[in-house]
């Protein structure tokens, strides 16, 4: 009896909460027409500086864009600027026929076609001068599946039809007639499996197009002649060349470029590297057609190099302002009309997204989604919290959809799942849906999948080929209701949300190695969200305000009061057991996320002099899922060990600094000890000289 009462009380509380959430959501929807929220649910925080504030040109009040003065502003003094020469490759390196696999162009897991009737759209990047010639699909059909048909179409135009048996492993389609628009060839691939029971087919048939399936191209890539064509639809690699100790502007440009590359080549296997400038007198060899080199060259102007005779695959950036336009403004490159920037031709005001309490699917990058099938039809909408822009979490989702009628003898339902958990369901009794669904905060993660599932049970004898196919279209106007809170626990889960709208980057020391590490992190985070990341490189610790990405050594960890900052430490669980141990003598690398003074900090640091473990740690943490795979709030790696991810905050873990041991003492005072040893050795040699070299005859013995 008492139990039943408690249960009813809980139910009542849940219902009241649900009502509140729904009311709030509706209110938010009504307010969606407002351009900006006026209420800020979070206390006032120190905001990260915008790139404008750190632009040395802006700071110095210099205006000339094409003067090549981007290296000025007092920061270039610390940078060694070698003479950069360019040389056309003069060979055909890398200019053979292009062959792109699905995994390279954004379909890392391949494509799976479900049931007897399904389709997928494939968008292939096509560089200028090339044409897709064939599509070769490596296929894994369901064993025992009846002979099926694969249809390749573009819009309503059927380009090719191929038979598919359950033993077929490879199918080739000609792509000669595919229309390429704006550097992209988008076409649909559909499957039709004949059979008696379409419902059964929906459940059991899977046709997997492996990631190794490839598109082959014909033609010759055209030389790049203008900046807006520099970043071709497909690139294998982009290399940003900076000095070993880059200036603030150069490093900022390299970080902006990292975020830009992740956005521009979202999902693709395009690699972004930071490389050293060639030594004085050493020419920079022009890369092949599938690669690009960007050179920070403040002594010149921003332009494509070698357009007369070469491929035009080297871009020299002469000013921080040009780099900002290219890498941080939406369509920045398209604003450039010639092969070089023109003074005063461009409005430098940054794009400022309107902040509202609602984000439609369209704003998150999803178009209207139409799904067809029998039995179970699913539409996935992956999104990151960071996609909502500045610190925000969805509290509700307004689902707007239309669907075909359910046969009288059948019935159906619609369900909404968030990250696998059912959050709402309803019977399909009309032809449209417009519901506001509350989103439980505890289900939200950094990266989420909202799934809309339609389930039909057709009447007896209706599961046959040719019978009615259930169709539903989810409107891109469906929207998330958001508020200005970040409910994610401290740690890596809060990034990149915590880095929005901008964040500081602190590199100690500011060298190419650390620029590369920071760029890798920024690029990986940018892959998880459509919202542009805006790093602002800080000149020093004092300049690093707001959310912070820091890369440095143990002294920086000390200064930032990182949870793990001692040269040596032990990690104990709540029972006192030691789970990990690093002595001060053994260097380690760590990545940790925590909150300091209300701001989130992501720190990468290493102890000792060897920075390689940090690079290894980052590489291993991001492989193979990028930032999607980074969990917990501490990743740690010894010089020779493996990378381990941990959640230490609120988990009862204790980080105990290790007392100095002889070996740690040696590690700590290594330089002093070796210096002393050298002095002692020299003194011994001095002492020994008259004794063993220049002996006097009468002092023998």
């Amino acid at each position: 009896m008492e139990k039943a009462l408690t249960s009813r009380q809980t139910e009542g509380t849940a219902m009241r909460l649900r009502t509140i959430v729904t009311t709030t959501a509706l209110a938010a929807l009504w307010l969606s027409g407002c351009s900006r929220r006026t209420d800020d649910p979070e206390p006032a925080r120190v905001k990260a500086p915008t790139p404008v504030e750190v632009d040395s040109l802006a700071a110095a009040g210099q205006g000339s864009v094409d003067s090549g003065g981007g290296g000025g502003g007092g920061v270039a003094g610390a940078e060694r600027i070698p003479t950069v020469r360019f040389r056309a490759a003069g060979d055909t390196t890398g200019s053979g026929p292009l062959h792109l696999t699905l995994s390279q162009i954004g379909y890392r897991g391949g494509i799976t076609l479900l049931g007897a009737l399904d389709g997928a759209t494939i968008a292939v990047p096509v560089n200028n001068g090339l044409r897709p010639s064939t599509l070769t699909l490596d296929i894994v059909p369901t064993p025992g599946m009846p002979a099926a048909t694969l249809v390749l179409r573009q819009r309503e135009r059927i380009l090719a039809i191929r038979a598919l048996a359950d033993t077929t492993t490879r199918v080739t389609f000609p792509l000669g007639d595919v229309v390429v628009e704006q550097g992209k060839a988008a076409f649909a691939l559909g499957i039709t499996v004949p059979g008696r029971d379409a419902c059964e087919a929906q459940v059991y048939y899977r046709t997997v197009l492996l990631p190794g399936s490839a598109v082959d191209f014909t033609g010759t890539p055209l030389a790049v002649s203008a900046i807006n064509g520099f970043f071709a639809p497909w690139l294998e690699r982009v290399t940003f060349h900076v000095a070993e100790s880059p200036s603030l502007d150069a490093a900022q440009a390299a970080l902006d470029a990292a975020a830009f590359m992740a956005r521009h080549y979202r999902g693709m296997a395009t690699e972004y590297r930071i490389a050293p400038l060639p030594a004085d007198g050493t020419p920079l060899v022009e890369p092949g057609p599938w690669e690009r080199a960007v050179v920070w060259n403040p002594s010149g102007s921003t332009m494509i190099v070698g357009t007369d005779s070469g491929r035009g695959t080297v871009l020299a950036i002469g000013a921080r302002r040009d780099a900002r336009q290219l890498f941080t403004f939406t369509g920045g490159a398209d604003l450039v009309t010639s092969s070089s920037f023109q003074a005063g031709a461009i409005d430098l005001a940054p794009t400022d997204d309107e902040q509202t309490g609602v984000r439609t699917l369209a704003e998150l990058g999803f178009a209207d989604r139409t799904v067809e099938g029998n039995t179970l039809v699913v539409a996935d909408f992956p999104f990151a919290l960071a996609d909502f822009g500045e610190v925000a979490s969805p509290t509700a989702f307004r689902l707007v959809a239309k669907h075909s009628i359910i046969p009288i003898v059948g019935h159906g339902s619609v369900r909404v799942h968030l990250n696998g958990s059912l959050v709402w369901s309803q019977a399909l009794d009309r032809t449209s849906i417009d519901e506001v669904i509350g989103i439980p905060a505890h289900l939200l993660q950094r990266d989420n999948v909202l799934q809309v599932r339609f389930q039909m049970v057709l009447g007896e004898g209706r599961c046959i080929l040719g019978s009615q196919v259930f169709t539903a279209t989810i409107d891109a106007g469906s929207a998330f209701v958001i508020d200005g809170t970040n409910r994610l626990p401290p740690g890596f889960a809060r990034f990149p949300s915590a880095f929005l709208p901008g964040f500081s980057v602190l590199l100690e020391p500011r060298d190419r190695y650390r620029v590369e590490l920071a760029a890798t992190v920024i690029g990986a985070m940018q892959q998880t969200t459509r919202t542009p990341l805006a790093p602002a490189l800080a000149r020093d610790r004092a300049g690093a305000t707001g959310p912070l990405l820091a890369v440095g050594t143990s002294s920086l960890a000390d200064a930032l009061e990182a949870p793990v900052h001692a040269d040596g430490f032990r990690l104990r669980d709540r029972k006192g057991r030691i789970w990990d141990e690093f002595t001060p003598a053994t260097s380690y690398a760590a990545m940790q996320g925590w909150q300091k003074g209300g701001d989130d900090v992501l720190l990468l640091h290493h102890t000792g002099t060897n920075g390689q473990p940090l690079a290894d740690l980052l590489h291993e943490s991001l492989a193979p899922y990028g930032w999607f795979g980074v969990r917990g709030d501490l990743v740690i790696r010894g010089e020779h060990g493996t990378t381990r991810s941990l959640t230490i905050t609120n988990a009862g873990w204790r980080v105990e600094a290790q007392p100095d041991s002889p070996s740690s003492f040696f590690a700590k005072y290594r330089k002093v000890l070796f210096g002393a040893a050298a002095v002692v050795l020299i003194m011994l040699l001095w002492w020994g000289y008259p004794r063993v070299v220049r002996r006097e005859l009468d002092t023998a013995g």
Partner: protein
Amino acid sequence: MSSTRLGDHLVQRGVITAGQLENALIQQERTGERLGRLLLILGHITRLELARALAELWALPFVVISEREIDLAVTQRFPLEATLGFRAVPLRDEGRTVVVAVAEAPTPELVDTLSVVYPGRTPDFRVTTEWDIDQGIRLAHRRKVVDTSIYGLYFREQGESAFTVFTLAQYIVFGVVCLLLLYGLYRAPMETLLALNVPITVFFLLVVVFRTYVGVSGAASETAISITPEQVRALDERKLPTYSILVPVYKEERVIATLLRSLGELDYPQDKLDIIMLFEEDDPDTLAAAKAAAPGANVRFMVVPAGPPQTKPKACNVGLLFAHGEYLVIYDAEDRPEPDQLKKALLAFRHGPAELGCVQAALNYYNWNENFLTRMFTLEYSFWFDYLLPGLDRLRLPIPLGGTSNHFRTSVLRDLGGWDPFNVTEDADLGVRAAMHGYRVGIVNSTTYEEANNELGNWLRQRSRWIKGYMQTALVYSRDPVSLIRRAGWRHAAGFVLLIAGTPLIFLIQPVSILLTIAWLVTRTTALEPLFPPVILYLSLFNLLLGNALAIYVNMFAVFKRRLHVLVLFALLNPFYWILHSIAAFKALGQLFTRPYYWEKTRHGLTRHGLT
């Protein structure tokens, strides 16, 4: 000069009996030695009686040389070399004559030389004893004797003397290497240690292979020069040359009597032995013990002038100045040479090639079964003298001489400049120097039994001195590597590096290898992996397992020749014995810089075992 013969004169004077004379004459018939010396050796007369008799026969005055008799200014005008050659000591200038003491009948050559040195003076000869002549030389030429015995080699050929421990170039290279090593350890410790490990491992391997190869070569030949008893018996004693025996002793009062007894038992005509006992000035006890033992007339006592370095080679150089013999051998105080050793050595010289300048007899221990140290020492010596040195001889490689029982042609030894008093293994140095000068060193099948060190501290002192000496020798001959190769050839140079330089190096490196192995066995650490890339790992494993096994194995078969089979299993304990070597090596390294010429005295007479 009287025409009466010495024997008759002595009988007439009643100094000896007719029977004694007859006995001496029979002896003279056998050995061909002069009668006076025979009578002395037989103990029928004293030196004083002999000298007086000779003075009467030669009609010359007799004189006893003392400080009062000598005018140093006059005596020192006569060069030391002439004094030693003529055995004549000018005593004083008397205006028209110069008084000269002699122990032999004056020769025309002596008269001519005196007329050149003392123009316008007529020699006024006086007869004295051999001892007085030596005494006169020491009194008059003390400074010169000391200088010659200490700096003789240095002034003759600085490059061959260990007086300078490091040349400037060597020191600069040493200093730069040390500093580079330190810098490397700071900047890239693992890479530096790897760079160090590779040559060390390869060098270790080469030493193991070299020693095994030489040992096996020695086993195949056993001894290069094998003299049979028949050959010894066939020797005509009348044609035997005088043999000088140098016995440097220091604080050996406990064994001196035994030594003299052993020398008396040598199968060589006593009248043809020139035994020179070399005492140090600060060691009156040993001198007193020697006098108390009443040695024969063929034994001369010589007190080496004090002054640093107080080393055995310095004493030997003094002995070399005064030695009469055509051949010369050195014995230590505790040595017990096999009786026929001198004859075997002589035959070895006679049968050997003209360039054979030295013959080394084997050394072994009579107290081998006393304790762990003596057993291991015996194993080591058996391998060294019975296999390694014969192997070196067979392969025509430089042979580092053993401390005693090395027999020289005296002229060759003087030609080489004698011993280096600044080198604490002057014997090894001399062997290498002989090779550099084109002389050969042979090994003869005779053994001198010594007393093995049976006390750890004493053993460490002795061994650290030996290793320090090897370091000195290595430094001396590596001063000019190009010259070394040009003079000695590639094979000799390589043999020198692997044996002389390799021995101390291996002992210095060995503890590090052992510690690394133990650290790995105990901790199974992976931290050492970067130091041992596959090839080096396999070489190191070869050195550790097969290298040590080979070293133990060759040590094992060393006992077979001596039939000391009971020691076979002790060869397995060699790794522990090598650790003692390493301790001694580090001590030697420290002393090389702090006291390079310090002679760590080995105490003898500690054994409770007699010769078996």
